[in-house]
């Protein structure tokens, strides 16, 4: 028994060392550094809330935080959309695998490539404007990424485009584990499609909906990669998100403590929301 214990730890050790170094250490040390004036060249001093005062006085960060919260608007769209897609492709139609693949392709595409491609789409003389002007939905070409009220929504759309397929596959996996006899029994009882959807499918999907919603809320709060490849925070700082501010300050301007303070704020939001969700959305035991 003791021998097995030692062996178990030997098996685990390499993985745990790496997890400690690159997952736990950054959270702990990073939280500490957010309260200091850390830089790589001189000794570190505790400065209390100074960094936090700085970032909350800073327009870019405040806009960023607002934008990150605005990103939460996407969550219901992503989830409802993904469930609808999953139901749509959970059929034995010929060629359905091809469609599933098509919807998943954006998920397996590098964000830099996504940025380039959607840069083309959103170009003032790009395809999107062509379609919209041809259909007479707009009078003049729209500057999707150069308009400071629109750019953020364009980024949100691209994030949605890129994420939908991932959640679709999660829901599809859940749908395929719904026992077929339940559906058949409901059909025999004369339930129509809508009734079956609301009374059987949705309750069966509940655990998946919970997990996916939490993941999607966290992803929305942490959005920044699309900003980097599409607008780099512009025009006029309108597309900063809280974490993009951290990225920008930390790695482009080398103001690490400010950047860490910003990511600390994001983390607090993330952990807070995760805890709330786990507490209140847990499936109730009967």
């Amino acid at each position, binding site marked *: 028994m003791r021998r097995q214990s030692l062996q178990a730890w030997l098996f685990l050790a390499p993985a745990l060392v790496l997890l400690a170094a690159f997952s736990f250490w950054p959270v702990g040390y990073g939280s500490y550094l957010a309260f200091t004036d850390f830089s790589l060249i001189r000794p570190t001093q505790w400065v209390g809330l100074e960094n936090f005062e700085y970032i909350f006085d800073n327009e870019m960060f405040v806009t960023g935080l607002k934008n990150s919260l605005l990103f939460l608007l996407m969550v219901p769209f992503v989830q409802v959309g993904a469930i609808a897609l999953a139901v749509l492709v959970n059929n034995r139609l010929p060629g359905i695998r091809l469609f599933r693949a098509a919807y998943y392709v954006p998920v397996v595409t590098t964000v830099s490539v996504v940025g380039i491609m959607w840069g083309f789409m959103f170009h003032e003389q790009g395809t999107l404007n062509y379609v919209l002007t041809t259909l007479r939905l707009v009078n003049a070409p729209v500057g999707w990424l150069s308009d400071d009220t629109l750019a953020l929504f364009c980024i949100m759309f691209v994030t949605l485009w890129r994420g939908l397929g991932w959640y679709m*596959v999660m829901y599809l996996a859940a749908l395929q584990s719904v026992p077929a006899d339940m559906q058949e029994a409901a059909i025999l009882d004369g339930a129509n499609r809508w009734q079956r959807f609301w009374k059987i499918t949705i309750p069966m999907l509940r655990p998946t909906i919970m997990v996916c919603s939490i993941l999607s809320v966290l992803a929305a709060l942490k959005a920044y990669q699309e900003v980097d490849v599409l607008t780099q925070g512009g025009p006029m700082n309108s597309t900063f998100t809280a974490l993009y501010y951290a990225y920008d300050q930390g790695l482009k301007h080398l103001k690490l403590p400010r950047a860490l303070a910003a990511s600390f704020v994001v983390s607090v939001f993330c952990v807070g929301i995760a805890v709330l969700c786990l507490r209140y959305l847990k499936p109730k035991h009967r």
Partner: protein
Amino acid sequence: MKTRTFQAAGHYLLLCAIALVCVFPFWWTLVTALSTEGNIFAFPPTFWPKSPSLANFEEVFRVIPILSFFKNSVLIAAFTVFWKLVLCSLAAYPLARMQFRGRRLVFGLILATLVLPSEVNFLVNFITVTKLSLVDTYAGVILPNVVTAVAILLLKQAFEEVPQDLIDAARVDGASEWIIFSRIMLPLITPWLATVGILTAVEAWNEYIWPSIVMSKPDEFPLSVGVLYLRGTFGSSTRVIAAGTVLTILPTLAAFLFTQRFFMRGMDGAVK
């Protein structure tokens, strides 16, 4: 009967409309990369290549070291996959099949990394990598991505599905845990190793922010970072950028299309 055909037609129409939104940006990029004539942003735009040729692709090879980008991406992906499979299966085995003190604690810690906002880690990880003098090395790119909770969870589940009789028989025969792990368990979970491997390969290939932080010399960039370089420094034409983009996605796309079922299975395991 008639309503059913009608319904099916409607179903397909909807499926195609959504597929168009998903795939169109790829198609447009491909058309642009293949065309050599006409204004790129012409009204009406062309949805079919005009006088198609591979000239833009040749141009990509001329202006950026795309072959070294490609090689770098392959190296990074291969090392990440190898080490992830080794370290995560080693960690998953005792969690699934051995009794020891602290097992619940370790498992809880690993689960916690799923909730911890890992995107926030890159700043301190950058400091760590700097202090370990791993900046500008592939080790610096790879190390933080080698052990992930998802991989450990998937492999743990795989190990749990192996019948206990096999392990008991081996123990009776006096096999050590190492032999049981390497000779009996690992071969039995090969399909799951393949799943984790393929998911990891695509992830590593697509990783963008972290390698762009760690690597500073353009020659050592992976493709995902290098392709943006095409947009910046050389001020290349849109067509050349499009060609570079096509070359970047092609391997991932091929890998995905040929191994779709592994992606589905990965999700399946993640939901449980």
